[in-house]
């Protein structure tokens, strides 16, 4: 059995670790709140943009816009997978789950020609050397993710899709469901779902356009793609903080259990040592 001093040291080190995990949990909790607010902040733009699009859709020719083109290879051809992971670890199964989902996607679509877009250091570490062509890597995201980051991620995807280098683009990311639950989402980014023309809008308002409706439509579509990427990035960052919070909470509780167990064993060892000493003294006295 370990000596008393060893056990004391062990307890102290566990306590130190516990303090760190506790602090990390608290930090994650406060970051989570801000991240959640930012996710909600993206909603008005998406709703308003869709609303505007729906009202123009009736007046422009949707069929030949490059971002809407449903090519024959959408479900079979060349595919780009944008994988959003975190830069930092210590967040439970957050990144492992993403990598697993990607693996599943690869198994399900063996016949497809795949390229990867990796966001986050952990994704690069896990998927960078699997032999798939890497279209872009984007790591060390700033603390506050903004439109500039979304643009940087969306741009290569839009480029490759319009050039015909890929036939579809998918996003894989963790969606923030609740503090305990992250949803793994695989969604199609390009081609975009066709814009629905509601009968009401088509017959309703007769707009003036400055410049032309087609140009506004053409300008607005990429913005919507970027907005979708931005939402995915923000969802992922909220989910990351949530996952870290849960993981660190579990770690704090585990270390509490460990300290308890160690203290118990330590006391037992101490007791045994005292008992042994007493026996020695007593038997020594009897021998005289």
């Amino acid at each position, binding site marked *: 059995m370990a000596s008393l001093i060893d056990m004391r040291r062990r307890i102290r080190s566990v306590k130190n670790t516990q303090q760190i995990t506790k602090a990390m949990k608290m930090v994650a909790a406060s970051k989570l709140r801000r991240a959640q607010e930012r996710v909600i*902040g*993206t909603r*008005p733009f998406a709703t308003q943009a869709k609303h*505007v699009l729906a*009202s123009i859709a009736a007046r422009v020719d949707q069929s030949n816009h490059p971002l809407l083109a449903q090519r024959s290879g959408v479900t079979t051809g060349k595919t780009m997978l944008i994988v959003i992971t975190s830069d930092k670890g210590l967040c439970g199964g957050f990144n492992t789950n993403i990598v697993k989902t990607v693996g599943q996607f690869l198994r399900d679509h063996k016949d497809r020609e795949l390229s990867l877009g990796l966001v986050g250091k952990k994704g690069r570490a896990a998927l960078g050397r699997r032999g798939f062509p890497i279209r872009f890597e984007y790591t060390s995201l700033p603390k506050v993710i903004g*439109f500039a980051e979304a643009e940087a991620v969306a741009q290569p995807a839009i480029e490759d899709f319009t050039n015909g280098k890929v036939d579809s683009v998918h996003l894989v990311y963790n969606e923030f469901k609740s503090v305990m639950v992250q949803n793994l989402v695989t969604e199609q980014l390009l081609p975009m779902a066709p814009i629905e023309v509601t009968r009401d809008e088509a017959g309703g308002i007769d707009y003036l*356009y*400055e410049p032309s409706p087609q140009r506004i439509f053409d*300008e607005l579509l990429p913005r919507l793609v970027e907005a979708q990427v931005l939402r995915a990035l923000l969802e992922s960052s909220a989910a990351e903080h949530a996952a870290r919070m849960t993981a660190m909470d579990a770690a704090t509780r585990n270390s509490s259990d460990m300290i308890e167990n160690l203290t118990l064993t330590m006391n037992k060892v101490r007791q045994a040592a005292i008992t042994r000493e007493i026996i020695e003294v007593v038997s020594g006295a009897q021998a005289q």
Partner: protein
Amino acid sequence: MAIPTTLRLEFVTPERSIVHDEVDELQLPGEEGFLGVLPGHTPLLVALKVGEMWYRKGTETFHGFVGFGFAEILPSSVTILARIAEKADDIDLERAEAAKRRAEDLLAEAAKGSVDMDFERARLALLRAITRLQVSQHARMRR
């Protein structure tokens, strides 16, 4: 149909909502020139450029910076979808000044032809910085 007396202004960027308010009048930097909007405006969809916008509520005027995007104008509401936007009070003057200097330096270098760089990007950066400074200055003058 009665002409509405106020406009419901929704001013949003992909990141957040900037203004959500009832206003009496506003002006926007349209791609083909500035335009003023009063309640009862005819439905209009307009592309925006980098520039200054303001809106009036009662006797108070608020200024803002807007860079690229669209505005949907209806008789009783205006929706601005901007790529970048800030309220005058939120503009970081030091950052704008620094950005202006940086862009100017880059353009000066480019004029000499010494470096190969993204001319258009520097030009836009300079435009944004100057506009931000202007907006902030105008907002302070009104006070």
